[in-house]
């Protein structure tokens, strides 16, 4: 297959920018699309070409596959990269691309249909002799059916959107009386988010870890796994912190999970990058959860420990190139931890906090990677996911990676909107997290406990950080702060230093 010259990026935010940069690095011309809310977004500013999709709401813009395909055709793009979310797991869209002779950078529609739908994927897992959680292998048609099935497998149970991802359309149900209403709201939410309201039901595993295997398959039948990611730190089934490798996965378990994942991929004729999610219980049994037939938000941690670039590889595979390495050549080195920075307010029920970013001071330093999609002055739209950026730290070992990420969070300042930066810092400081004593319920338990007060280096009340804040407040309020160009030492400065040295 010929190499690609122009790729339309059917997404927004940090992933659109990350894909755009990958295209440039490969000498491919990146084309952006945008909604009215995103006219000023970085992916529009940095693209070679940019075309308007429509009004802000996703259904009028980033979910308008017809419009996107029309744009691709008319601007001469030979491929479309859907990123994650939006159209990334939409089989009809993938088929429409193929029909239009435009390469869809992702798995073939057949594999998406087989694995993209969680219900079908569970059936496929059975055929591939993979352990999975008990529950339905097709969508629920009525509350009655749900209640019967739930009774059969026993509470607590979990409702999930067949087309879902990112926790949307998911509900954990403890008691039968909550099931009917939950079914409706889950189905509604799924329909709003994915355009399909299909919901299924499965047994809820107690205190599971969420561990997933990164797959990569080419068009020539080669399938490899690039190690695992642990994504157990979640809130409402929404991943918040991810890492690679998992602290509890050794070479043997990695091999078993990896090979099972590859088996499933071969069974489904899978091509390109994909992720098989598992639940792992205390006894290290793993249960097939679902397949994400796309690039994951958290792919960065895998890139850092493998030294590979998954988007470059996705494009190479889409161009028909064989994988440039074998399973044996894939070696994990070091440790990577990623936090998702959200525009939400942990102090008031995690309300979304869209609005203008009036101050943005980014962290930096060795081992720090940020996949960002915002800038100072950018207005975070109300219409989309509240994720602002992904901050990732790489280091030779897990403890150092966590310490490094913590320091980066301390440097980070985002003003004008509320974010979860402080909460992320709290998790990194938490003894259980540091000891990797985590499961998918860990964060909710942490949040139920009062936040510990961070020790202050100050020796007396006159110089604790509240006092410093008070002084700064007055100085900010005072007419004209000291000229930034002054270099001369004032007597007071001398005095300050003399005293400082005298301590």
């Amino acid at each position, binding site marked *: 297959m010929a190499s690609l010259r122009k790729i339309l990026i059917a997404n927004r935010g940090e992933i659109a920018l990350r894909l755009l940069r990958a295209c440039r690095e490969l000498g491919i011309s990146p084309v952006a699309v945008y909604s009215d809310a995103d006219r000023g977004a970085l992916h529009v500013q940095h693209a070679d070409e940019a075309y308007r999709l429509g009004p802000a709401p996703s259904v009028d813009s980033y979910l308008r596959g017809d419009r996107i395909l029309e744009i691709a055709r008319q601007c001469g793009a030979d491929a479309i990269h859907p990123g994650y979310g939006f159209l990334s797991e939409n089989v009809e869209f993938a088929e429409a691309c193929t029909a239009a002779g435009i390469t869809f950078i992702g798995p073939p529609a057949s594999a998406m249909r087989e694995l993209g739908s969680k219900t079908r994927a569970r059936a496929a897992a059975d055929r591939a002799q993979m352990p999975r959680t008990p529950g339905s292998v097709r969508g629920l048609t009525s509350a009655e059916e749900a209640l019967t099935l739930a009774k059969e497998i026993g509470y607590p149970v979990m409702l999930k959107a067949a087309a879902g991802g990112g926790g949307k359309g998911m509900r954990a149900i403890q008691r039968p009386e909550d099931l009917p209403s939950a079914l409706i709201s889950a189905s509604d*939410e799924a329909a709003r*988010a994915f355009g399909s309201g299909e919901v299924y039901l499965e047994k809820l595993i107690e205190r599971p870890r969420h561990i997933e295997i990164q797959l990569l398959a080419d068009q020539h039948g080669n399938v490899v796994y690039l190690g695992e990611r642990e994504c157990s730190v979640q809130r409402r089934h929404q991943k918040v912190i991810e890492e690679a490798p998992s602290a509890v996965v050794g070479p043997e378990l990695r091999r078993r999970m990896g090979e099972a994942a590859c088996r499933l991929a071969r069974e489904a004729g899978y091509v390109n990058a994909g992720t098989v999610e598992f639940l792992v219980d205390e006894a290290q049994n793993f249960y097939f959860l679902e397949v994400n037939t796309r690039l994951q938000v958290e792919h960065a941690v895998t890139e850092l420990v493998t030294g590979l670039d998954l988007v470059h590889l996705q494009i190479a595979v889409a161009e028909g190139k064989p994988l440039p390495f074998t399973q044996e050549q894939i070696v994990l080195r070091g440790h990577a931890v990623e936090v998702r920075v959200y525009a939400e*307010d942990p102090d*008031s*029920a995690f*309300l*979304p*906090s*869209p*609005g203008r970013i*009036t*101050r943005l*001071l980014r962290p930096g330093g060795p081992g720090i990677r940020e996949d960002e999609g915002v800038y100072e002055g950018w207005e975070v739209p*109300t*219409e*989309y*996911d509240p994720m602002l950026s992904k901050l990732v730290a790489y280091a030779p070992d897990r403890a150092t990676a966590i310490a490094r990420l913590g320091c980066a*969070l*301390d*440097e980070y*300042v985002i*003003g*004008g*909107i*509320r974010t979860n930066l*402080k909460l992320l*810092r709290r998790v990194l400081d938490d003894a259980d997290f540091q000891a990797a004593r985590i499961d998918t319920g860990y964060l909710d338990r942490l949040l139920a406990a009062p936040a510990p007060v*961070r020790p202050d280096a100050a020796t*007396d*009340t*006159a*110089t604790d*950080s*509240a*006092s*410093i*804040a*008070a*002084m*700064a*407040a*007055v*100085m*900010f*309020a*005072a007419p004209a*702060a*000291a*000229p*930034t160009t002054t270099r001369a030492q*004032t*007597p*007071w*400065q001398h*005095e*300050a*230093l003399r*005293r*400082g*040295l005298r301590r």
Partner: protein
Amino acid sequence: MTPLAVEVEVDGTLRRLALERNEGGWVVHMDGRAIPVDMYEPMPGVLSLLMEGRSYRCVRTVMADEETIAVGPRQHRVAVSDPRSLRAQRKRPGAGNGVLQIKASMPGRVARVLVAPGDAVLAHQGVVVIEAMKMQNELKAARDGRIVELRVAAGDKVASGQVLAVLE
């Protein structure tokens, strides 16, 4: 030059301090001590303070409803004031007296209105549902009362801090 005495509310607690300016430097009078402070403003909204050798980076950010100063990683809500204006503040509706405003906690769209003018509501009862970023959030009454005013209808776009209803 005589020290300027101010009261600063930091995270809800009042701090008294006196400052004195002196050719580009400052002296802070606090807890009976006079502490020289070397101040530098690398960019608007950011102050670098050197005080008894210690270095502090203070970043000021303002949101509709409040001013925050981050000292290194530590965030503090601050309000500079003198006693008079403080008293004045206490007179604001919603703070102490019989009228309570229910404000939008985030920008978004009104999904549903759960009450009508004149309705009696109980504490924690839902009043308005706002949707943003695909999440619905119910705003509840902080205490028992009666809806004397309803300023929004379903479908309205609302800004953060906008008054949605008034409770009496």
